[in-house]
């Protein structure tokens, strides 16, 4: 009897998601036992053609990490969708756009200009910018098209499930994989797997009081108390607007959560929700003072939308 097929693919990502799959350590052998690996470019043979030759739906499960940054990413995303029964957006980039989604604050040309012209160590008098098609003396070379905006996986194709995190916690990945291997039923389409159903605060051991914020502080210039809720201390922590599941790793390490697990269930826009929450607990009635307090948040978009800018409500103005 042939085993079901598994595909793991990376689009615009750092490889951390693949590492977190490897970090299930010895259990990777269980995966090997249960599945035929149809595709895993980081670890195994990669054949576009073979995938193209498959029947639609031939792959049982595809774990897709990385965002859609260029034409190749999009092409493979659509191809894998067609060939997979279950397509999972794996990790922050595929799920929400990820850290690299902050690039949507700039246009394509601005990014290229910064990297290839403005860098102090780059010497590029002819202002050469990589091209999708370039001629060398021996012939033509091609590169995929670098899009103006980055998109999450579900912005280019239909997605069945999401596994959040930057990267997903290996234990959570393992639990999902074992669940699937055991053949247990999956939740409704569109569900988030491998994470909790509440916000980070649920698992956070820090002491929480009623919140009233008079001052925002930065980790650069202040040391937080290790026992008390960071937000109460004025350090913006995205924990309240972030789904649980990572084990509150960052907060336990003494720094605020930045929200890589994405919004909790029911929350449409993680950044907007946190902004709304923070705005509500500013401890002042005086508009000038409120403005002064708010102005202490130096980088609102990078703070509230660190991982979710491309999938936020803000994205529309970009397109």
């Amino acid at each position, binding site marked *: 009897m042939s085993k079901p097929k598994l595909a793991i693919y990376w689009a615009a990502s750092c490889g951390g998601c693949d590492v977190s799959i490897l970090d299930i350590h010895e259990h990777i052998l269980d995966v090997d036992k249960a599945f035929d690996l149809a595709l895993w470019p980081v670890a195994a043979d990669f054949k576009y053609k073979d995938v193209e030759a498959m029947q639609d739906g031939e792959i049982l499960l595809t774990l897709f990490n990385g965002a859609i940054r260029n034409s190749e990413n999009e092409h493979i995303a659509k191809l894998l969708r067609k060939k997979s029964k279950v397509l999972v957006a794996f990790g922050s980039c595929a799920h929400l756009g990820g850290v690299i989604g902050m690039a949507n604050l700039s246009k394509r040309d601005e990014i290229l200009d910064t990297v290839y012209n403005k860098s102090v160590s780059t010497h590029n008098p002819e202002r050469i910018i990589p091209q999708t098609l370039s001629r060398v003396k021996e012939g033509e070379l091609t590169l995929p098209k670098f899009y103006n905006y980055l998109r999450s996986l579900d912005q280019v194709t239909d997605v069945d499930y999401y596994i959040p995190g930057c990267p997903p916690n290996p234990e959570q990945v393992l639990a999902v994989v074992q669940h699937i291997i055991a053949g247990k039923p999956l939740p409704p389409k569109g569900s988030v797997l491998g994470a909790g*159903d*509440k*916000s*980070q*605060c*649920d698992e956070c051991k820090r002491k*929480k*009081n*009623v*919140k*009233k914020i008079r001052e925002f502080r930065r980790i650069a210039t202040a040391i937080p108390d290790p026992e008390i*809720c960071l*937000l109460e201390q004025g350090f913006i922590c995205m*924990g*309240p*607007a972030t789904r*649980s599941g990572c084990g509150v790793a960052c907060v336990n390490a003494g720094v605020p959560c930045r929200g890589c697990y994405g*919004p*909790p*269930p*029911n*929350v*449409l826009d993680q950044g907007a*929700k*946190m902004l*709304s*929450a923070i705005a*509500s*607990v500013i401890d002042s009635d005086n508009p000038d003072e409120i403005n002064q307090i708010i102005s202490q948040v130096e980088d609102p978009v990078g703070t509230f939308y660190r991982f979710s800018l491309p999938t936020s409500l803000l994205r529309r103005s970009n397109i």
Partner: protein
Amino acid sequence: MDKPRIGVFICHCGTNIAGKVNIEEVKKYASTLGDVVFATDYKFMCSDPGQELVGKAIREHKLNRVVVAACSPLMHESTFRKVCMLAGLNQYLFQMANIREQCSWVTEDPELATVKAKAIISGAVAKSRYLEPLNIKEVTINPSVLVIGGGIAGIQAALECAEAGNKVILVEKTPSIGGHMAQFDKTFPTLDCSACILTPKMTSVGQHNNIELMTYSEVKEVSGYVGNFKVKILQKAKYVDHSKCTGCGICMEKCPYKAPNEFEEGLAQRKAIYTPFPQAVPNKPVIDKETCVYFKTGKCRACEKFCEPKAVNFNDTDREIEVNVGAIIVATGYDLFDTRSVSQLGYKKYDNVYTGLEFERINNAAGPTAGKIQLKDGRTPKSIAILHCIGSRDKNYHEYCSRVCCMYALKYAHLIKEKTESDVYNCYIDMRCFGKGYEEFYHRLTEEGVDFIRGKAVCVLDYNDAKTLYPDMVEALGITDSEEDRKKLFVRTEDTLLKKTMWLPVDMVILCNAMKSRSDAKDISRLLNISIGKDGFFLEKHPKLAPVSTATDGVFLAGACQGPKDIPDTVAQASAAAAAAISLVQRNKVVIESATAYVNEELCSGCKLCNDICPFTAISFDESKNRSVVNDALCKGCGTCASTCPSSAIKANHFTDRQIFAEIEGLLNL
């Protein structure tokens, strides 16, 4: 939930809507919207036939969602909710689309108005798909009423409630009830003696079985909700046991220390142990700790020595008590504008420049001059200027009209004319005599020889300054350097009707200063969750249709705390507030808002961000479950917590994210 079957009902509102919006086109558009199975229009949807039309359509077309496109929900949401209920549909399956205030009244171009009406209806229809039926909730009501403030408004309200059989707790900050009205001499325009009509009411309050009077007390904390308020009251230490005190007054006689008398506006003095005025209720003294020398040096105790019933108790302490009431009437009154801030008018700089209330005391038979109108040096004035609009109708101070000043200015003019031979000048901008008998009073005054100058007085100089700056004027007016003339004051104004600048040499100036909101209005507003308008006074729920209600159910307004008011208006409003409170507490049960917020335990992470933001203090924290809880009865469904909750664990019924986003999408989906 069944598949939505939506009915859309478009109201013409006469020409209010139909005059601008193309109803036919809008109706056609509405009927094309998804899930809309019926769309119609009518001239006045809120009329009986209009309501019948809606009810009939619900039954005939088996509608399970109703959208009425008409005026604001404030106007008629309850009307149509009732129609739905009668037709067997849960009232929360009704959605109002406001195409009047938000559309036809504010959009000038008919075509754009039609487009906008479509968008608004599209939004309402989209939202209605996600409406959910909600249960009607009731709570029982405590029949007691708390009245805050013991001026004429509080007195009237307390008596009305008590007479209706309800227990009343009347809390007054000062040692006696009576308020500003007790300081007045005569009342306009009837010239009744203020004390004569007020004291019987005060006595009734003091003696009424249903009224528990707490003077020298302040409300410190209010929690709970309509029908079930918990109120903490601080009873300040009086140092006199009123249950023992007979009110004989010997203590006040014997007390050797004095302080400025607040009741006399500082024009006279009182003792450290005192009753504010002879007719005070309760007519039993308190000790003013600030003035009493015993509290500073530990010596004296003269009052104690002479007190036969041994009522003086220096060990008395502040006490906090808690009471439960079903309704609260706020009657905290007003303050007067501080005329020192208009420095050019010479108040507190020159003698014989008085505020209105100071003159009231000077003129009062029980006042410091025993009712004799006199100057500081005891002379009777020969000329008096009454300056209107001091601190009111003025962008630099208060923009509003203080409403009572014209009338009390006329009253003073009359009393001056009655008691003295003095000339009286009234410098006014506009005479505003709108009440019953007021214009007649003005008419009477013009016949009494009072001089009216239409122009705002801008400065008051004394003899020396006038002589230095305007020697020609002083000379031209025939002012000599006689002792009497050297005490003259010079008032400058333009008579705008003559286009002439005037100088009025007078002996006394009365500044008709504005009524303003009390300095502690903000504290009270926080305590009770009621709003303050931009004029500083408490905001009624609706200026016309709910003038004594507030945004907090069960809290009502009486008197000048809501805006400048004369006595007749105050008494009328106090009675209205009492009636509103009585009709509430006598209902036994009250229906509370069902569109409230609730915490989904499955999703709440216990972050406590919502805990302190509820304007109605409806949220508490359950430590054992590590989650926040919304008290249904307190919640008004404002949605603050729902928008605060960073994990969307709080849902605002009837305004869920899904409903709101559907509405937005509907609005944009043209």
